[in-house]
């Protein structure tokens, strides 16, 4: 390597400093949530808030797990988020591919513009019309309503993400595959997608997390407790005058941890998709 030892050391230290700084920024509120979920009620709101817990307790977790339908909410969120991710990804791969490779056609271009336009409507004004549509489809109170709505919300960005990643896949690979007699579909699935694994993961994570955390439509479309998803479920602990901070925190920790673990696992693939010759970490 050309960089001198000292220079290398400097960059290394800087990298660590940056990473630690970002970790503090990112973790601070989460840690506060975690600490709150373990504090006894009388320590939660105090004039002298600390990260130190005198007598840690699991009673908020017990309250969430045994005295609310957290399990149901959790299962519903998993179903909704996974379905949304799969459908949105399937749709966006093709739409993104079309936008990347066939952007010159007007039909494609106008769908792209429509997608952009669809993102510009404030959510509040979507509430009543979408409720009516869902009612007409007989989907109110079902997870189907959320899956369809979230998929529609996710498709535009997923498509644009996929487009921008496909843009960086050289045409030549595809052309040679087509020479070899591959059809369009098999070219996409066998040639283009395998080199786009990191972007597929980034995109599907996006769809998953947004569906997992969505709040407004989750509470507008669903009245029945059995179809309720996590975020509206967590907000039930917020009373009119008093907020049950311990339980809110415990429920949030329980809903956040699986996603973090999933990401920690997924990022292996994010790294695996690196181009040849890269140093694996």
């Amino acid at each position, binding site marked *: 390597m050309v960089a001198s030892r000292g220079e290398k050391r400097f960059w290394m230290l800087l990298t660590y400093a940056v990473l630690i700084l*970002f970790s503090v920024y990112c973790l601070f509120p989460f840690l506060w949530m975690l600490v709150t979920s373990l504090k006894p009620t009388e320590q939660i709101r105090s004039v002298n808030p600390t990260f130190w817990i005198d007598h840690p307790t699991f009673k908020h977790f017990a309250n969430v797990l045994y005295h609310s339908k957290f399990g149901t909410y959790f299962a519903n969120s998993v179903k909704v988020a996974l379905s949304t991710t799969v459908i949105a990804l399937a*749709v966006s791969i093709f739409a993104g591919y079309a936008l990347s490779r066939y952007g010159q056609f007007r039909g494609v271009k106008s769908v792209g513009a429509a997608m952009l336009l669809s993102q510009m409507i*404030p959510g509040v004004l979507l509430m009543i019309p979408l409720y009516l549509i869902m009612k007409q489809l007989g989907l109110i109170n079902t997870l189907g309503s959320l899956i369809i709505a979230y998929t*529609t919300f996710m*498709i535009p960005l997923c498509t644009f993400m996929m487009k921008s990643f496909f843009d960086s896949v050289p045409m030549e690979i595809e052309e040679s595959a087509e020479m070899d007699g591959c059809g369009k579909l098999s070219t996409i699935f066998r040639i283009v997608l395998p080199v786009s694994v990191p972007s597929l993961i980034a995109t599907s994570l996006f769809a998953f997390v947004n569906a997992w955390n969505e709040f407004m439509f989750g509470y507008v479309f669903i009245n029945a407790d059995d179809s309720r998803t996590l975020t509206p479920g967590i907000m039930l602990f917020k009373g009119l005058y008093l907020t049950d901070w311990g339980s809110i925190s415990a429920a949030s920790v329980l809903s*956040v941890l699986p996603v973090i673990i999933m990401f920690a696992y997924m990022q292996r693939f994010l790294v695996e998709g690196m181009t040849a010759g890269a140093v694996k970490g």
Partner: protein
Amino acid sequence: MNAKVEKRDHTASIPDIAADNRPASRRTTTRVQRARRYALLFVLPAFLFLVLLNAFPLGQVVWDSFHYRNMVNAAQQGWAGLSNFVGVLHSEIIGKTLWNTVLWTVLSVAGEYIAGIVSAMALNQPVRGRAFFRGIIIVPWVVPIVVAGMMWTWMLTPEYGVINIWLVKLGIIDKPYYWLGEMNTALLAITFVNIWRSFPFYTISLLAGLQSVSREVVEAAAIDGAGVMTRFRKIVMPQLKTVSLTLIFMHIIWTAINFDFIWIMTEGGPFHASETLPITIYRYAMKEFDMGAASSLSTLMLGFMIVVFSLFYFSAMKKRQET
């Protein structure tokens, strides 16, 4: 000539293609025709979703903005002409909220992008424990917004918020400051929280983009004597260009129409100091039941964004043609 052919075909776009699909295999088609068929087939599912769920609401917004539609005032209904627009533009706070919207959008997106690219570059280095750091960086993004908003509000409170008390203990400020309750800091404080929440997605996307930057090329450039900044500008950035533009574009739209954090943390207060257009729209629609006013403000926002984006698009096209 080419353009003409395209135009004619376009008029018979999507339904036609679907009907056309079956005989296609038998007919001998040119390469361009086949490509067009693929293209339209590929965007069809996305198109259907948009038509199903977005076309009607969008139409409704534009329609309502020219009608009196106040749910609590049944006496006044029907065509309103431009009076909804006149009404919202004459509101005392419209100038303030417009400025807030611009400030909120620009500061948020800029902050998110800077934080995103710095963290992505750092995470792309072969340092020890980067899997761990990557796991941490994603945390803000997976905490539900409602919960995060409430947590931050609590932590930022002067009397019993942990941030204020720590800042005082560390000697950074003299006495607790009401970040969300003072007119000059409310919007900035929420922007800070919004950056916290949104930048991890930039990090992940940019990191995915960085994977396609060949390390060999970077190292070769280093051997040729290119400094860190030059390597970054000349080799890394061009690779991230499309991803970056997509991220920034989408986030400009989303941030401009986003309202959750602001509503949860300050409801636009104190004295409209943190009120952006979506908050005003929400208030018109859900608190005053004036769908006409809410829709006309949305239509204005929509129109403004369309103009800005088309201007950008055409200038980019022009640039591309020139080069």
